[in-house]
């Protein structure tokens, strides 16, 4: 938001940057704090898995097939004796990687498309937005499913498919913001001062749109994770023997008497989605009150 502030009215002492105010608000709300704590745990588990996981995620132990939770195997073992806890920890890395990459890709491509549509207007905007509408009419999972089926089940393709489903959302959001910003005085001023289109978009429009884009990105992360785990549940995500939460639930379903096989990986998905939702809500609230504060 910094570009929106007139330089002349700079306060006497250096005020905290808007980004820091925003982050502080997020951390101080209970949702933001909860979300961060859970995500930090999941991230730590994912990053430290090679050292901290009690067992190998792919090592088979035919002596200990479908054993219930015990001190040796906290989350029990699966149908070929692999440690469920270790697999959940390794699976975290897989899921988080897909989610972060997919949302980043969607953010980048969607924002560019949205800015082009909003800035150019006319038939370019018409065409782009109708295509985005058409993509949005597809349920997320249905579109992602078809794309993965075409490209083949593999993590990069899953990432690409999820990114594609989220692009229209970013494009629509950014376009709407650009449309309102185009009418604002400081943009008109920049234009009459002879700034190029690219400069106006990058230096004046983007900083004013980025706040809402970040909020939308954090809300999208939970949908991305649900889609990723649903794809891997259907067998179109990470391929065995690589651990993946959704696939573990699918396998566990075939062994109903070994409830731990499906309950624990599902719990991991549930908690991570919850954390993303919390962070998204906190981010939205933080941005809202900051805008209100500035207006008054």
């Amino acid at each position, binding site marked *: 938001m910094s570009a929106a502030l007139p330089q002349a009215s700079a306060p006497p002492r250096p005020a905290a940057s808007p980004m820091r105010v925003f982050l502080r608000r997020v951390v101080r709300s209970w949702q933001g704090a909860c979300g961060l704590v859970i995500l930090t745990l999941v991230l730590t588990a994912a990053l430290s898995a090679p050292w901290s996981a009690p067992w190998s995620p792919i090592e088979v132990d035919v002596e200990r097939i479908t054993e219930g939770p015990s001190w040796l195997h906290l989350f029990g073992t699966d149908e070929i004796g692999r440690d469920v806890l270790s697999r959940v920890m390794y699976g975290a890395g897989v899921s988080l990687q897909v989610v972060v990459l997919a949302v980043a890709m969607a953010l980048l491509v969607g924002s560019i498309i949205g800015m082009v549509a909003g800035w150019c207007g006319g038939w370019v905007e018409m065409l782009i937005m109708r295509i985005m509408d058409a993509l949005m009419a597809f349920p997320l*999972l249905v579109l992602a*499913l078809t794309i993965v089926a075409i490209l083949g089940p593999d993590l990069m393709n899953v990432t690409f498919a999820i990114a594609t489903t989220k692009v229209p959302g970013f494009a629509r959001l950014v376009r709407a913001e650009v449309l309102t910003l185009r009418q604002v005085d400081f943009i008109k001023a920049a234009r009459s001062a002879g700034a190029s289109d690219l400069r106006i978009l990058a230096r004046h429009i983007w900083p004013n749109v980025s706040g809402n884009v970040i909020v939308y990105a954090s809300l999208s992360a939970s949908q991305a994770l649900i889609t990723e785990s649903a794809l891997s549940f259907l067998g179109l995500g990470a391929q065995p023997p690589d651990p993946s939460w959704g696939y573990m639930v699918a396998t566990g379903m075939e062994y109903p008497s070994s409830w731990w096989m499906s309950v624990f990986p599902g719990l991991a998905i*549930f908690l991570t*989605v919850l954390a993303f939702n919390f962070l998204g809500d906190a981010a939205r609230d933080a941005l809202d009150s900051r805008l209100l504060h500035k207006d008054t």
Partner: protein
Amino acid sequence: MRRVLTGRLAQMLPVMLIVTVVIFALTNLLPGDPTVTILGEQATAEQRARARADFGLDGPIPVRYVTWLARAAQGDLGRSLRSNEPVVHMLRSRVPVTLELATFSILIAVLIGLPAGVLSARFRGGWVDVVVTVISLCGMAVPYFWLGVLLILALAVGLGLFPPSGYVAFSLDPLGNLRHIVLPALTIGLSFAALVMRQTRAAMLQVLSQDYIRTARAKGLRERRVVMHHGLRNALIPVVTVIGLQIGGLFGGAVVTETVFALPGLGRMLVEGIFQRDFPAVQGAVLFIVTAVLVVNLLTDLLYAVLDPRVKS
């Protein structure tokens, strides 16, 4: 009203056209030789050529698209590469299952979500509100397939109340049909209820802070009447809209839920079609789903105009 309708229809048609292009392009990019699906590995080149001509698989893609679209517009979606059954017939047997699932899911969602949302807003900040909010936050984070598996573990395997999977037609065994649909409907319905709850709560809070609610209370109306009659009726408008706009999410949920419970519905048809490389079936299922989403969105807009006279302009 008519203006709203024509305006929205004019907007929808180009979108629908682009949708058909996307579906056709996506399904024609599905890997693998479709004649292998039809004839198996052993067929000769000659047989393959004949099958291609038979199923309209020869010729350039744009020409095939136009042919496909023209036939689709007349209600002919081709035949399954697997069973040679017309795709329209497949849809006719699959769609009712998904519709039944969707109807019961929405019913469960509304029966739970609406009262919970109203109570939560009426007693804002109290323990009811806290409990309802926590449950709805959890409900929105739980993946359908996991909830489905949990329900199977607890109610089917554990307590043996319901069959864990499968389906019986209503016409054959009405009671058995209902017993089979309870768990899948709960799976989608409970998640959906969380959404309805959250929307109802937000809408009710907004409405209950209005002046006319204070007026209603000031003139001595009973609280129940104020909340239900003056409050809920107005809060229903945004809630109905949200339910309508979430229909896509419902279909997405059906894809997963029908897989978990082995229900022979539209979602299962889509997943099976993808795994069996049966692209006419995939085209048919996706086309039906997206069309349904667009039509329901259109109806939601119209309903909004009917419910709220202020939107008519």
